[in-house]
């Protein structure tokens, strides 16, 4: 029994992966624009997204498709067929397809980059006189600020499109559900409650959209780290490697399924919200 008792909670701290000390401090008045690990990961994700877009689309299309063109067409078809067509009205597809597509690709690549070990981290080790960063995994999308910023873009786009296509009064009027009893002194409380709930639910969308992606990536990384970290927590020989198969299983589950689904759902829900604002149900 004693062999299992943990002694080493002081030397193993999985939460350190998510520490973000400033590497290049930049302070603009009250704004903290410092460059840290998450910012660098965002740059990497953005660069890879741009390069993939150029690689797929900028070499011309031919009638006998190469593998590159087939990949591009598969991605296009996934976004067009599964996300955009069913949720956006046809007159808005031209405007909002690029947004949904880049949202999907950007989040997808940020998530994938988050599971590839990269030499971007806060810790350093010495090799032949050189100070090199240790290799580690970290996802920019496992940071609430990143996902909240992405969700805010969708949030503002939704209401801007709703007001632009329906006018201010009709759009906010469309939030009041149909089928309510006529408004008078008796039903005023009911009306107030329902309208309040509808308005709150608009803000809950913002929370659920950002927290879903953030918590998924955070939990995935934590799970892998804790399972590997059993090596440092348990000190007797065979048992300390008990978590490794689980860690590998979770790693591949995340990399194959979760990474794609979360990007897919984020983009699909953005399309549904924007489409729903352009053409309200009543």
């Amino acid at each position: 029994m004693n062999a299992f008792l943990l002694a080493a909670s002081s030397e193993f701290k999985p939460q350190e992966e998510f520490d973000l000390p400033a590497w290049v401090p930049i302070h603009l008045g009250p704004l903290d624009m410092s460059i840290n690990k998450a910012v660098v990961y965002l740059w990497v994700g953005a660069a890879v997204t741009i390069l993939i877009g150029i690689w797929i689309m900028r070499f011309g299309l031919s009638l006998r498709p190469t593998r590159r063109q087939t990949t591009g067409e598969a991605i296009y078809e996934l976004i067009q067929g599964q996300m955009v067509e069913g949720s956006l009205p046809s007159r808005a597809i031209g405007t909002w397809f690029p947004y949904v597509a880049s949202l999907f690709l950007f989040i997808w690549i940020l998530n994938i980059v988050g599971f590839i070990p990269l030499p971007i981290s806060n810790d350093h080790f010495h090799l032949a006189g050189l100070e090199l960063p240790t290799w580690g995994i970290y996802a920019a999308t496992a940071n609430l600020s990143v996902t909240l910023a992405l969700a805010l873009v969708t949030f503002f786009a939704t209401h801007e499109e709703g007001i632009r296509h329906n006018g201010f009064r009709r759009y906010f009027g469309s939030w009041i559900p149909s089928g309510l009893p006529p408004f008078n002194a008796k039903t005023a409380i009911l009306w107030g409650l329902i309208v309040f709930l509808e308005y709150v639910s608009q803000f809950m969308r913002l929370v659920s959209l950002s927290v879903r992606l953030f918590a998924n990536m955070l939990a995935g990384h934590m799970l892998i780290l804790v399972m590997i970290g059993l090596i440092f927590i348990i000190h007797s020989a065979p048992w300390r490697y008990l978590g490794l198969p689980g860690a590998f299983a979770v790693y591949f589950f995340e990399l194959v399924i979760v990474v794609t689904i979360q990007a897919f759902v984020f983009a699909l829900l953005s399309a549904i919200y924007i489409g729903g604002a352009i053409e309200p149900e009543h």
Partner: protein
Amino acid sequence: MVTVLAATTGNVADLGKAIAFGVGVGLGAVGAGIGIGNIFGSMIQAVARQPELRGELTGIQWLGFALTEAVVFYALLGGLLAYVLV
């Protein structure tokens, strides 16, 4: 085992918070597990009855999966917040 428990002298409040956190997330996972099982079960049934609808249903299935799965993470996040703040 009994002696180990009786000999606990550390921070009992932290112990309680850790147990509460674990139980809370576990209960959240129960609900999501049932929901995800329902979604995939219905998907199998639907495709068995009308295989030609598979393409259309797949998108809806993953959407439902992600919406249901997120419930665990709301529990996780609430638990973490309570663990850190209380």
